[in-house]
C-alpha cells in the first residue's frame, strides 16, 4: 500500500477576508521552500455541493516529499467571493499544517523543521502495521486494495475529554469483537496504548486506567483512534479565517483508523477509514454504531457502574440484530397435529400412494386405516394420550404405520435404533420410563414394568374400531435421544406444533407436494427421519422406505432412486459424498429435484462436480443447519455454483418462524462477523429435555426478544451482515493440545482444500506415549477423490502451508472411505489407529508367528493399524488392494494363495489360520 496519503495531514480554512493570492504567495515563499500556491476558481457558491466536492478533493490529495516539496497550498475561490485555503503537508516535512496556514494568512514565520530521519521512521512503522493479520471478524476481502470511509457523529461528554472517553468506548467495542480483555489501540503510526477491559471494574476505575495508559512503540495495532481539537480562528490585519476541516491522515494508517474532531460542539463528527482487505463496509457500520452507543452509555453512566453493564448496542440496534437473525418473519401457523394432517390427505387424496417398501405399498387411505388398526391395539394394550411408547424397528412399512399409530393414540413415540448396543437401548427405555416398546427384536433388553410387542401383534381387525379424539397440538409428538459430547444421552421432547411449523417454513419454498417422492434413508432414532417421514406425509407425497442394504451401498441406493423416481432426497454430507462417487460411475437419477443436506457441516466445494452433471435448475441443493432441540432444521442455504466455488460456509438465514442470536460467553450480543455461540428461538424450540429440569433450565433460556424460549446450541457461528449464518463447528470441537486452543474443523477444512482430497477427518488421540509430553496428538484422515492414488505427503505440505505447526496433524492416513455412524455421520470412534513409523516402513511384526507377520503386511498395505478380527472389505479393501496384498506377502517371503480365498478368510486371524493349515498340509 502506498504510504504517502497515510502520512499526510490536511487542513481547510474558510477565508472570509484576506484571500489575496499575491500576499499568500509572498508569505508562502518566506515560510517554505519550493511550495506553490495553486488558485482554482470554482464555478459555484462557497456553500454549494460543488464547493464541498472540490474542497474534499483537495483535502484528499497527498503531497509526496520524494517527488516535490511534500506540501501543497490551494486557494479555492468561489463565485460569491468567499474562498477556502487548503493546506496539505507530509509529516516528514511539517508537523502541523495549521502553522503553515498561520504563516500564509497572518505572519510569515517559518514553521519548525521536522528532523530528517522522521520520515523514514514513520515509513518503517507503517510497514510494521501492515504486517498485522486481518481479523476473521472484520469480514474483509483478502487481496482487496481499496479503502472505505464511514462517517458518524457522537454526542460529546461535558466532563471528561473526548479523547479519553472515545478511547475507553472503542476499547469496549474491540474487547467484545476480539473476545479478549487486553486492548491495543493505535494513536498514530508509531505508538499505541494498551489497556485492559475488566468487566467487573467500575466505570471510574476503567476510565482512570485508560487515562493512565501511556503511548508506546513496538506494537502493531489493528485499530487506531485519533482525536483532534479544532484550532482557533485566524485573525490578523485584514484577515479572518476559520478552520473548516482537519484530516490527520488521508488514507487509513491502521487497518481501521478512526478520527474524531473535537470542535467543542455537543455532537462531534467522526470518520472511519479502513482497508477493505481487513474490514468490510458493513462490519465498519456495525462497529461505529457500537462505538457511539458505548460512548453514550459510558459518558452517561454513574461512575460506580460495572464496565460489564455498559451496553454496546442500543435498543434499535439490538432489534436490528434480532431481525437480522430472522426475528419477526414468523408466518401464521395453524395448530396442527401430525396425524391430523396425514388424515386430511387420506380424505383428500385417499388413493394416492403414501408409503412403499420393497414390493409393498400403502395408499393414504390404507395407511390411515392400518394406523387406526394398530392404534386400537395400542389402546387395548393400555396406551392413553400422553403416554410414551418405545419404537425399536428397522426401516420398514411397519415402522411408519407404528409411528402414525402412536401419534393417533395421542401418545409420544420414542424411537430407538435396533443397531444400537443393548446398554444404550436399556438406558433409553429406562430413562424414558417406557412401559411398552414395539419391536421385532428378541433381544431387546427386558426391564421390569416394560413389555414389548411385535408389530404383527398389533395387526388384525377383531378389535373395537379406533375413534380418534380431539387432541392438543402442543402435546409431545416424539422424544429423540441425543448423545452430545458430554454426559449421558438426553431425550428431547418435541411437540406436534413444531413439526407443523417446520413444514410451513419449507413447503412453499421447496415446492413440496403430492408429486414428490421422498426417501426414508435415516434411522428413526435420528431426527433427520422426522423431516423425511412427516415432511413427506404432511405434504401428500410418497415415502420410499430405503431397505438397510440399500442405505449401506451407494450404487444400490442410486439404483433405488432411479427405480422409484425419487424427487426429494435428504442426506448427510458424508453419505452424499459416497453417492457422488457412485454418480460418476453411473449417473444418479434425474428425477431427484431437491437434495437437503443435514446432520453435519457441508463442504460445498466438491459439489461443483455434482452440479456439472446435475445443474442447479434441475436439482436444487439446500444445506440445512439443524439441531434436534429446535425441530430438525434451523436455517436453509441453497447451494449454487457460486457457493461451491467460494467454498461458502454459510448455512443460510433462519427458516421463517425460527430466529438466531450469536452471543458471547457472557451471553451478550456480538456484531455480524464476530463468532460466538448460536442461540435459536422461535417456533422450532422444543422446550425441554425429558425429566431433566436442570439441564432444561441450562439449555432452554428465556428469549430476550420474543415470547417463549431460546435454545443454547453449543455450536459456534457468526451472522453475516445479510442475515445468513456461518456455522463454525461445535464449541467443544475446540481442543487443547500443548496449551494451544485448536479448532479441529479448521484443520479438516484445510485438508479438504488439498488437491484430490474428497473427504477428511481429524481427531485428537490420547497416546499415552511417554515421548510425547502431552500424551496426545492430532491424527488426520483423508479420502482421495475418484480413488486417486494421492500422496499424503503432499496433503501434509498443503496443510502446513496454511496451518501453524501445532495444528498440522502428526499423522495423515489415506482411507478408501470414512467410517460412518448409523446416522450417516463420520464415526470418529471407528477411524483406525494410524501407523506412526512413516508411510513406507510399516511396523515390524510383533511376533514371529504367521498372524503377527500377516498383520504387519496388512498394515503396510492399508497404511493404518489393523486388528486381528478386522474384516478386509470392511476396512475398505477391494480386489485391487487384494492384489497388492498378495504382492506384499510375496515380498515378505510369506506363502501366497489364490485371491478368492481372501473372500472366504476376511480377517488376519482367519487368513493366518488358513495359511498355517495350508502349509501344514503336504
Amino acid at each position, binding site marked *: 500500500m*502506498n504510504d*504517502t496519503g497515510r502520512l499526510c495531514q490536511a487542513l481547510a480554512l474558510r477565508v472570509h477576508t484576506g484571500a489575496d493570492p499575491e500576499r499568500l504567495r509572498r508569505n508562502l515563499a518566506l515560510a517554505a521552500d519550493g*511550495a*506553490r500556491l*495553486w488558485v*482554482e476558481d470554482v*464555478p459555484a457558491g462557497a456553500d454549494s455541493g*460543488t464547493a464541498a*466536492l*472540490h474542497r474534499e*478533493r*483537495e483535502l*484528499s*490529495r*497527498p*503531497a*509526496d516529499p*520524494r*517527488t*516535490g*516539496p511534500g506540501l*501543497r497550498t490551494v486557494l479555492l475561490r468561489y463565485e460569491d467571493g468567499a474562498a477556502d485555503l487548503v493546506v*496539505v503537508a507530509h509529516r516528514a516535512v511539517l508537523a502541523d499544517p495549521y502553522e503553515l496556514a498561520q504563516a500564509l494568512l497572518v505572519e510569515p514565520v517559518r514553521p519548525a523543521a521536522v528532523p530528517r530521519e522522521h520520515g523514514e521512521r514513520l515509513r518503517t512503522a507503517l510497514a510494521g502495521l501492515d504486517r498485522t493479520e486481518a481479523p476473521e471478524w472484520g469480514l474483509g*476481502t483478502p*487481496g*482487496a486494495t*481499496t479503502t472505505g470511509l464511514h462517517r458518524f457523529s457522537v454526542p460529546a461528554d461535558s466532563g471528561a475529554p473526548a479523547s479519553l472517553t472515545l478511547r475507553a468506548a472503542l476499547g469496549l467495542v474491540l474487547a467484545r469483537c476480539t473476545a479478549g480483555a487486553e486492548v491495543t489501540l493505535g494513536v498514530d503510526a508509531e505508538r499505541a496504548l494498551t489497556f485492559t477491559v475488566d468487566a467487573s471494574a467500575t466505570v471510574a476505575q476503567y476510565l482512570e486506567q485508560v487515562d493512565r495508559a501511556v503511548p508506546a512503540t513496538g506494537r502493531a495495532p489493528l485499530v487506531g483512534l485519533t482525536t483532534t481539537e479544532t484550532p482557533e480562528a485566524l485573525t490578523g490585519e485584514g484577515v479572518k479565517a476559520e478552520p473548516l476541516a482537519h484530516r490527520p491522515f488521508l488514507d487509513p494508517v491502521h487497518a481501521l483508523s478512526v478520527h474524531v474532531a473535537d470542535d467543542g460542539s455537543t455532537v462531534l463528527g467522526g470518520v472511519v477509514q479502513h482497508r477493505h482487505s481487513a474490514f468490510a463496509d458493513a462490519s465498519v457500520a456495525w462497529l461505529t454504531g457500537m462505538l457511539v452507543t458505548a460512548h453514550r452509555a459510558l459518558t452517561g453512566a454513574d461512575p460506580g457502574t460495572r464496565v460489564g453493564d455498559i451496553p454496546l448496542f442500543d435498543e434499535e440496534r439490538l432489534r436490528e440484530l434480532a431481525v437480522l437473525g430472522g426475528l419477526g418473519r414468523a408466518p401464521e401457523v395453524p395448530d396442527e397435529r401430525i396425524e391430523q394432517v396425514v388424515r386430511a390427505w387420506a380424505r383428500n387424496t385417499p388413493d394416492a400412494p403414501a408409503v412403499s417398501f420393497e414390493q409393498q405399498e400403502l395408499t393414504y387411505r390404507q395407511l390411515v386405516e392400518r394406523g387406526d388398526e394398530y392404534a386400537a391395539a395400542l389402546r387395548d394394550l393400555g396406551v392413553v394420550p400422553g403416554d410414551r411408547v418405545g419404537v425399536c424397528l428397522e426401516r420398514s412399512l411397519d415402522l411408519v404405520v407404528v409411528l402414525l399409530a402412536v401419534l393417533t393414540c395421542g401418545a409420544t413415540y420414542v424411537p430407538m435404533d435396533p443397531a444400537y448396543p443393548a446398554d444404550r437401548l436399556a438406558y433409553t427405555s429406562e430413562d424414558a420410563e417406557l412401559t411398552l416398546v414395539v419391536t421385532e427384536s428378541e433381544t431387546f433388553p427386558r426391564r421390569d414394568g416394560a413389555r414389548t410387542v411385535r408389530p404383527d401383534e398389533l395387526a388384525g381387525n377383531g378389535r373395537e374400531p379406533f375413534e380418534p379424539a380431539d387432541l392438543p397440538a402442543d402435546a409431545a409428538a416424539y422424544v429423540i435421544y441425543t448423545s452430545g459430547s458430554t454426559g449421558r444421552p438426553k431425550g428431547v421432547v418435541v411437540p406436534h406444533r413444531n413439526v407443523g411449523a417446520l413444514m410451513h417454513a419449507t413447503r412453499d419454498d421447496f415446492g413440496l407436494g403430492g408429486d414428490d417422492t421422498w426417501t426414508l434413508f435415516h434411522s428413526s432414532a435420528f431426527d433427520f427421519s422426522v423431516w423425511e417421514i412427516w415432511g413427506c406425509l404432511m405434504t401428500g407425497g410418497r415415502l420410499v422406505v430405503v431397505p438397510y442394504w440399500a442405505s449401506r451401498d451407494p450404487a444400490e441406493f442410486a439404483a433405488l432412486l432411479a427405480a422409484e423416481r425419487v424427487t426429494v432426497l435428504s442426506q448427510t454430507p458424508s453419505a452424499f459424498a459416497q453417492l457422488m462417487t457412485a454418480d460418476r460411475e453411473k449417473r444418479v437419477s434425474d428425477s431427484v429435484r431437491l437434495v437437503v443436506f443435514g446432520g453435519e457441516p457441508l463442504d460445498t466445494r466438491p459439489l461443483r462436480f455434482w452440479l456439472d452433471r446435475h445443474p442447479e435448475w434441475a436439482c436444487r441443493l439446500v444445506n440445512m443447519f439443524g439441531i434436534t432441540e429446535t425441530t430438525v432444521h434451523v436455517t436453509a442455504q441453497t447451494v449454487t455454483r457460486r457457493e461451491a466455488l467460494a467454498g461458502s460456509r454459510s448455512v443460510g438465514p433462519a427458516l421463517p418462524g425460527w430466529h438466531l442470536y450469536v452471543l458471547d460467553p457472557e451471553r451478550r450480543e456480538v456484531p455480524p462477523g464476530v463468532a460466538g455461540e448460536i442461540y435459536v428461538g422461535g417456533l422450532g424450540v422444543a422446550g425441554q429435555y425429558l425429566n431433566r429440569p436442570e439441564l432444561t433450565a441450562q439449555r432452554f433460556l428465556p428469549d430476550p426478544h420474543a415470547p417463549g424460549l431460546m435454545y443454547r446450541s453449543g455450536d459456534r457461528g457468526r451472522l453475516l451482515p445479510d442475515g445468513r449464518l456461518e456455522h463454525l463447528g461445535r464449541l467443544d470441537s475446540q481442543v487443547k493440545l500443548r496449551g494451544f486452543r485448536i479448532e479441529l474443523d479448521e484443520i479438516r477444512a484445510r485438508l479438504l482444500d488439498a488437491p484430490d482430497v474428497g473427504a477428511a477427518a481429524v481427531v485428537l488421540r490420547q497416546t499415552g506415549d511417554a515421548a510425547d509430553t502431552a500424551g496426545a496428538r492430532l491424527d488426520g484422515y483423508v479420502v482421495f477423490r475418484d480413488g486417486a492414488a494421492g500422496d499424503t505427503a503432499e496433503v501434509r505440505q498443503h496443510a502446513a502451508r496454511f496451518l501453524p505447526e501445532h495444528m498440522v496433524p502428526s499423522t495423515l492416513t489415506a482411507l478408501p472411505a470414512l467410517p460412518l455412524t448409523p446416522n450417516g455421520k463420520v464415526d470418529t470412534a471407528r477411524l483406525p489407529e494410524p501407523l506412526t513409523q512413516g508411510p513406507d516402513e510399516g511396523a515390524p511384526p510383533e511376533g514371529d508367528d504367521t498372524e503377527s507377520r500377516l498383520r504387519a503386511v496388512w498394515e503396510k498395505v492399508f497404511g493404518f493399524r489393523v486388528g486381528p478380527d478386522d474384516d478386509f472389505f470392511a476396512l475398505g479393501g477391494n480386489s485391487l488392494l487384494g492384489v497388492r496384498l498378495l504382492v506384499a506377502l510375496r515380498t515378505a517371503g510369506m506363502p501366497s494363495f489364490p485371491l478368492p480365498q481372501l473372500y472366504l478368510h476376511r480377517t488376519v486371524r482367519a487368513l493366518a489360520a488358513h495359511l498355517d493349515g495350508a502349509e501344514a498340509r503336504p
Partner: protein
Amino acid sequence: MNAVRTAAPLTGKVALVTGAARGIGRACALAYARAGADLLLTDIGDDLDGVPYPLGTRSQLEYTARMCREEGGTVSTAMADVRDLEAVRAVVEGALDRFGRIDVLLNNAGIAAPSGKTVHDITPDEWDLMLDVDVSGAWRMIRAVGAAMTAQRAGSVINVASTAGLVGYRHFAGYVTAKHALVGLTKAAALDLAPFGVRVNALCPGSVRDDDAAEGRMLTEIARSLEVPVQEHEETFVAAQPMNRLIEPEDVAGAAVWLGSDDSRQVTGSTVTVDGGFTSR
C-alpha cells in the same frame, strides 16, 4: 472476481495528456474528465518551423480545459514542446506538485507532416523533426514520469501511435518510421516498468475524422501532403476500413479510458488498434 466496475473508472486518478489542445487529445481529455480524473493538459501552443500546418494553440488548450472543468474535473494547463527536455521535466513536476500523483500519461503529441515525399526525397531536417517529436517526445515524457510512477507502484502510459506504427503507407516514410519506433518503445518500456506495476501500451488509431468540435486537422493535413482533396481522401479511407466509416475521436478516447483504468490491469506492452478493421485486411 472482486473487480469493481464503476461508471467513473478513473475516479481519484490524475491524468497527464500531451497534445491536448484539440483532436484526439481533446477527446481523450474530455473522456478522462467524465471518467472522474483530474487533469494536467499540455500542448505546444506555438507553430513549429518545418511543420506545414498550424499546431495547437493556447486558446484551444484552455478551451479543452474549460470543457473538462465543466465535467467536474480539476484541471491545470501548461505549455510545453515535447522536444524540450527541461520543459517536459517542468510539466511533470508541476503535475506532481499540484496533484500529488500521476496515474495516467497519454503521450498524444505528434505531427503528421512534413510528409508526402518519396523516401529518398525527405530532407535530413524533415527526418529529424519527425522522429524528434513523434518518438523522442514520448520517450522524454516517460523519462520524466518514470520516477513518480515507479514510486507509486502504479501507473499507465499510453502512447498514441497509429496504424502507421503497424503497416507502411506510401510517401509517409518518416511518420511510419516514427510510429513503428513508438510501438517498439512501448514494448521495451513495458518490460522495464512492469516490475513496478506500471503499464505501457500503444494505441493505434486508423484514420480519424476531423471532427469540428475537436478541431482536429490530421486528415486534412495528410490529404494536403498527398495533394488530394480531403473529400476524396476520406472516401478512400472509408472504403479501406471494413467498418465502413472513419474513426471518430471519441472512439479512440474509449480505448484510452480503458487503457488508463484498472479494468485493463493486466494489459501491458500491447498495441490496441482502433482502426475499424483496417489492419486486419
